[in-house]
């Protein structure tokens, strides 16, 4: 009864505890996680700008945090999240145009997104040094 060809090829939702997510799925949830993280990062940007507006004392409080290794780590992480989200976002825009939906194409663009995000992050910090 349930063995008709039609029902056999229906995609099922993955059972998250037993199913190893394919890279495409990991990148999909990473897009969402980076989007949330970047939104939180915008609050740090607001702090930075407001500190500059309030004057040297307020700025010193910001710079004390931002100039520490932890501060650099957070901004470096922000830039990596940004480039990942940006590259994967561009992929989303291609998908929106109906391009790149075949599984083989998606697997290739998975790798392209990861490599491009890392390369752009490193290039940005090298160029700024």
């Amino acid at each position, binding site marked *: 009864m349930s063995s008709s060809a039609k029902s056999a090829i229906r995609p099922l939702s993955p059972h998250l505890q037993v199913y190893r997510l394919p890279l495409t799925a990991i990148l999909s949830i990473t897009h*969402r996680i980076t989007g949330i993280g970047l*939104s939180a990062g*915008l609050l740090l940007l607001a702090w930075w700008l407001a500190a500059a*507006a309030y004057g040297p004392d307020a700025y010193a409080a910001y710079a004390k945090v931002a100039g520490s290794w932890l501060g650099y780590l957070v901004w470096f992480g922000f830039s990596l999240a940004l480039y990942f989200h940006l590259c994967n976002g561009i992929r989303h825009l291609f998908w929106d145009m109906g391009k790149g939906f075949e599984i083989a194409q998606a697997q290739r663009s998975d790798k392209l997104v990861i490599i491009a995000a890392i390369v752009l992050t490193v290039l940005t*910090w090298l160029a700024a040094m």
Partner: protein
Amino acid sequence: MANTIKSLRSPLGRARGLGSAKEGAHHWWAQRLTAIALIPLTIWFAYSLASLAGGSYADFTAWLSAPINATLMILVVSVAFHHAQLGMQVVFEDYVSSHALRTGTIIAVKFACAAFAALSIVSILVVAFGR
């Protein structure tokens, strides 16, 4: 058997958007439009961030008071907060099932994004025009 699935696009995905769209299409379009605008803006921002992150008050305010930098920075914060607010709405719609809680958190996020965007823009202008 698994090979019989050729595309990641679901039948639902193919059907969506063919019927009445109401205001969902506007949200979708605004998310995309802000995404496109953010591509050049955030590349410029990432480079500026890497250059200035640990810098001094004098360096940062001198940089920010150049009209081109103030202008681009205002664009970055206004477009990014708008895009963030649209995106976070979708996240809450997906995960918060209680209607009241969902609506409440979405309103709170939208108000917070508007407030922090305003603070950021005013701060940029204060630095640009001097106190």
